[in-house]
């Protein structure tokens, strides 16, 4: 697998574009087709392509197995943190309108939805990559 220069070159070119497209899908969630779940899965698919093209050890060297789990926790913390922020601002849990009313910034509701989508995307991407590592990596510990 490692000697196939066509696969390696094409995926070296394709992976950045796939990741940019994934970020576009996440950020575009509020105004068009897209969202955190879809973008996160597309982002994780770019890591699958990297594993296919460059082999598991090469990808493992760059991505830490425990760090990716912490990334998933951070994504959920962004989502739940915005929910608790609404609680602190005197609304219900995840009531974005309360934050918008308390801070007085117009269109904050859509921005908060974008932040929530980003948190979803980070969490889904990290969970998917962790699952891929565990299933495809024969259970060995990351370096």
């Amino acid at each position, binding site marked *: 697998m490692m000697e196939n220069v066509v696969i390696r070159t094409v995926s070296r070119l394709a992976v950045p574009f796939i990741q940019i497209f994934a970020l576009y899908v996440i950020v575009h*969630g509020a*105004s068009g087709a897209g*969202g955190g779940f879809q973008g996160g899965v597309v982002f994780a698919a770019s890591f699958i392509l990297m594993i296919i093209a460059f082999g598991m050890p090469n990808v493992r060297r760059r991505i830490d197995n425990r760090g990716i789990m912490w990334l998933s926790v951070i994504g959920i913390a962004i989502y739940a943190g915005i929910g608790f922020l609404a609680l602190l601002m005197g609304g219900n849990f995840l009531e*974005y309108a309360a934050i918008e009313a308390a801070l007085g910034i117009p269109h904050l509701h859509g921005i908060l939805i974008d932040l929530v*989508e980003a948190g979803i995307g980070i969490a889904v991407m990290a*969970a998917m990559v962790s699952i891929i590592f565990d299933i495809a990596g024969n259970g060995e510990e990351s370096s």
Partner: protein
Amino acid sequence: MKTKALIAVLFIGIILFWAVEDMPAFGDPEAPATQYTGQLYVDSVLPDIGIDNIVTAILASYRGFDTLGEVLVIFTAGISVALLLRRGGRL
């Protein structure tokens, strides 16, 4: 055993095809599914939330708590796979 399974599959399949006749036509504006809450969301997303995508508005704002649960389900799946398959060590 195989004939029993075949009979069961055929029986359920015939019932499902029977039910297809009663479904509304594709894209029918008079269908019950598009009559009540659908129109409500189409009318109220823009004044309520101010974003263009109705699906995202329902997913992240009206049903935000539900979506938090969905993300937690995926996170739980990741942790479960790690606990079951990862050898020797910590998460």
